[in-house]
């Protein structure tokens, strides 16, 4: 499946782990200790914190605001161009590739780079195993159009939702989520399919396809086991993606014959 114009915007692999029994407290120092080894390449850092607030109404009718502690959700580092991201959460490591000018480097590169970072994570945090893997593709499909033009999505997509013309008429926006039964208890694929705003010059109608393949109960730290599950996840998304388009839709990506 070689496409000259693949619709990929972003792809990432997420490793969710079972922690080491001697796990350290999750905080910024712990995160920085791990991430500093990549600081030459990942030059920009973002810290995502979260805090929970509860508002209680007292018997007097007054309200009391209870602020929970500020907790570290994620630390994200990225390269200077913003095309490679590494995210560290509590028992979670995520590696993202964002496509910019030029070609998408491909699944093999994603796996190789992600595994390199994950191997460093294992050496540092010594998790007992990978509990869950997530492979995520964010695709943006652009259909050429003109302002006010009515596009029949059935001409481009084989996935969608049916509804009667009357009284609905034409849709201005839509968002649907599909979770097909994969037949495997531990492997799932889901698709969030939605329309997006038109381009500024209104010459393109944008549709977003968020693909996520989840592999649960991986139960291993072995390269072969993890790659095997990732490849299965990738194959499942690829097959579903390919099956989602009509020939006219497929032609939008300039396939190489």
């Amino acid at each position, binding site marked *: 499946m070689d496409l000259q114009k693949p619709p990929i915007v972003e792809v990432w692999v997420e490793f969710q782990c079972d922690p080491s029994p001697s796990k350290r407290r999750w905080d910024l120092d712990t995160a920085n200790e791990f991430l500093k080894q990549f600081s030459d390449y990942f030059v920009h850092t973002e810290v995502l914190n979260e805090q929970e607030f509860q508002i209680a109404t007292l018997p007097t009718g007054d309200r009391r605001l209870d602020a929970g502690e500020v907790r570290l959700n994620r630390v994200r580092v990225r390269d200077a161009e913003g095309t490679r991201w590494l995210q560290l959460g509590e028992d979670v490591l995520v590696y993202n590739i964002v496509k910019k*000018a030029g070609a998408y480097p491909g699944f093999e590169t994603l796996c190789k780079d992600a595994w390199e970072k994950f191997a460093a994570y294992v050496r540092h945090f010594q998790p007992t195993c990978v509990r869950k893997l997530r492979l995520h593709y964010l695709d943006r499909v652009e259909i050429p159009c003109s302002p006010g033009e009515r*596009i029949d999505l059935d001409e481009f997509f084989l996935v969608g939702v049916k509804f009667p013309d009357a009284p609905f008429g034409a849709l201005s926006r*839509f968002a649907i989520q599909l979770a097909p039964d994969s037949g495997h208890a531990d492997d799932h694929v889901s698709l969030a399919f939605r329309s997006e705003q038109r381009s500024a010059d209104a010459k393109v109608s944008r549709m977003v396809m968020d693909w996520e393949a989840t592999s649960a109960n991986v139960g291993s730290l072995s390269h072969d086991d993890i790659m095997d599950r990732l490849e299965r996840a990738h194959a499942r998304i690829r097959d579903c993606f390919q099956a989602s388009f009509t020939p006219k839709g497929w032609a939008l990506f300039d396939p190489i014959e």
Partner: protein
Amino acid sequence: MPILVPMDMTPVISHSWSSDQTDALQQSEELRRYSGTTSRPIPDLRVGVTCYRLRSPVVGSWLPGEGESGEFWVDGFSPRFVGSGAVIDAAFDDWRYQIHETFQDLYGKRAFEMSEAELNTWRLLEDRIDVVGYRNSTPLILREVGWVSRARPEPRQITWSDGRRERVDLEKMPGPFAAYKPGQWFEAVVERDSVTGHLLRVVSVQRVPTMRPMSEGHLSKFLQSLPGTNELPDSDESWTEP
């Protein structure tokens, strides 16, 4: 499934990974765990100390372009406001600076002063930004003149030149004020709550000479000394005919 490409942008759905509205908790957990780097939740919009509260949180999306620069789109604000930049942070900054600049430009205008395009832009901003909230939470910054009418016991008391008396907490005053003795006149830059008029803080103070109201005689003499229209030169020019 026919879809109509809208002539003007009319957002009817919000961006989220899960579209299942019946399971809000799961959705919130999904969003918390969402690992994408090309989406950015925007709970409110801040530029320095200026805060624009949004009527509801929005999500911005980064669209990498074919060239070096990409676009930052936000449901409801785009395509009128589209950020541009080489990375998501730069494009997000460009987007919020556009909103900030446009808001401040239009906020200072009355509706009849706006062009049709400006009016449409203002309606878009008003739909998404709590303008009344912004007005009410933005302090009034005033220049006021007064004197220290009491220093002890705390809190100190100021009598402003229009006769208002106000107790002030040293915590809200700049350092030099602490040395001012009763009777000291000063000029101050004051921040006041725009709804209640309560003193929020005094930004700066400067000693000024004692000011006293003029006596009736002095005032009358002063008013007489002001130039009047009878002192203007006569002219043969007509003001109504060319």
